[in-house]
């Protein structure tokens, strides 16, 4: 019995052996006078899906946006601490933020395709980053990205139609294709399925599972089931603190922290 329990509680032995893609040390974020993160220390394993969960306002989106310096766009936001991508400080003065955001791409809660054609939505990034030298190369990138995003079959005969004409789920996969097109290493997803129906959600989740082979993924989600389904590592945030981090199976079957237990089972603390 104890043996069985010990096995159950240990969870899969994947995370420990994985190389670390991104590291954060004592990350503190202020929005003006309000402190949003109270010193987050978290390692994000390479080519795994890390889920960030926690009640609204707990700081998980704030943390996510620190990883590719999206918080720079908010004047009142002040970030302290250290965030490393492959051991390199992403907040170092000599870092090119545009290049950083190409390496650490982002997919948002609401699908937000540009009001352009499907083709242009995907080709825009590689074009401005100079990833293609001619039309043929660009076509190749667009095709590959759409294929990886699981959208090719549905749109290959109407690449000139506006991206905004697609269904919600297709738009979100278009945004994922757009993120992939610039060959990122990390993809950040902020509640990517919250505006999608269950079928579109399943398609995106299946996609996330496939993308994990080549990309490191960090996903913020309010759906406990989704976090349990798609991630290998789960980090639970609470009031700006990292309450608990561990293998997803452990977090959802037998968490150590009472705040995690209360949150995932739908209790109040």
């Amino acid at each position, binding site marked *: 019995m104890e043996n069985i329990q010990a096995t159950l509680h240990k969870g899969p032995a994947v995370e420990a052996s994985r190389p670390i893609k991104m590291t954060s040390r004592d990350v503190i974020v202020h929005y003006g006078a309000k402190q949003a993160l109270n010193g987050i220390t978290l390692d994000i394993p390479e080519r795994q899906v890390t889920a960030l969960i926690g009640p609204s306002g707990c700081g998980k989106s704030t943390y996510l946006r620190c990883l590719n310096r999206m918080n720079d766009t908010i004047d009142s936001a002040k970030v302290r601490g250290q965030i490393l991508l492959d051991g390199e400080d992403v907040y170092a003065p000599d870092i090119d933020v545009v290049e950083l955001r190409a390496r650490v791409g982002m997919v948002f809660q609401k699908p937000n395709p540009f009001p352009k054609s499907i083709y242009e939505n995907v080709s825009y990034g590689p074009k401005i980053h100079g990833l293609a030298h001619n039309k043929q190369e660009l076509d190749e990138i667009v095709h590959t990205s759409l294929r990886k995003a699981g959208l090719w079959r549905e749109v290959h005969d109407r690449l000139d139609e506006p991206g905004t004409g697609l269904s919600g789920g297709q738009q979100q996969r278009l945004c994922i294709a757009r993120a992939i097109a610039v060959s990122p290493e990390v993809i950040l997803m902020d509640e990517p399925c919250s505006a999608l129906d269950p079928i579109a959600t399943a398609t995106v989740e299946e996609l996330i599972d496939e993308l994990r082979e080549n990309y490191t993924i960090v996903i913020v989600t309010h759906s406990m089931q989704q976090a349990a389904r798609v991630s290998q590592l789960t980090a639970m945030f609470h009031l700006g603190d990292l309450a608990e981090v561990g293998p997803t199976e452990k977090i959802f079957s037998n968490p150590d922290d009472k705040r995690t237990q209360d949150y995932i089972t739908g209790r109040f*603390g």
Partner: protein
Amino acid sequence: MAEHIVTSYEDELKFIIRRISEMGGQAERMVEQSVGALMRSDWALAQSVVADDVLLDAAQREVDERAIRTIAKRQPMAIDLREIVGAIRISNDLERIGDLAKNIAKRVIAVHEHSQPMQLVRGLEHLSDLALEQLKEVLDAYATRNEKQAMAVRDGDESIDAVYTSIFREAPHLHDGGSAQHHRLHASSVHRQEHRTHRRPCDEHRRDGLLHQDRRGDGFRTAEGRPHRVARPYGRDDGAAWR
């Protein structure tokens, strides 16, 4: 543990837990009454135990149904999921306790016209006291979520095995009255327990040729030549299969 935000979910879980407690009380009562009926050769009491078993069966089905519905509707996580899966298993075990109590009661009905040897009756009383004590303890541990107490019950199982062995395997009284008495007294559940504990049928059944060793030597056959399955932990709840 704090309450769920969704009160109807909280109510569903509480209902299942309450139902398990009720089943526990009922199983306990059935065991108590069946052994009481054996001690006092109380035919009527034994009859009522046999009749009561359907209530426990129904309760088990209800817990199963409710548990499945709650899993489907609420998608319980972590401690809640363990609670529900635990409830399904526990209700199964309690239902089985009810079956065994019914078995004892049936045997009481079969032997109530014969007087029982005092030594055997005392031994059985002692055995059932131990078993009932364990049942009380474990139900208490469930109600109060006392892990230590639950572990203690698990570890205490050996004492029951020891008493059982001393009554049915070492005591001479069963043999004094000859095989006929043995076959009357040896309740079906006892036979099955013997199988589970010692991995073989009891001596009397083999000695009287009711069962004999399979030619391959890996099992037993009945006098009619049907294979006699030994490793069957859960089966029909009347003892007929063993004869």
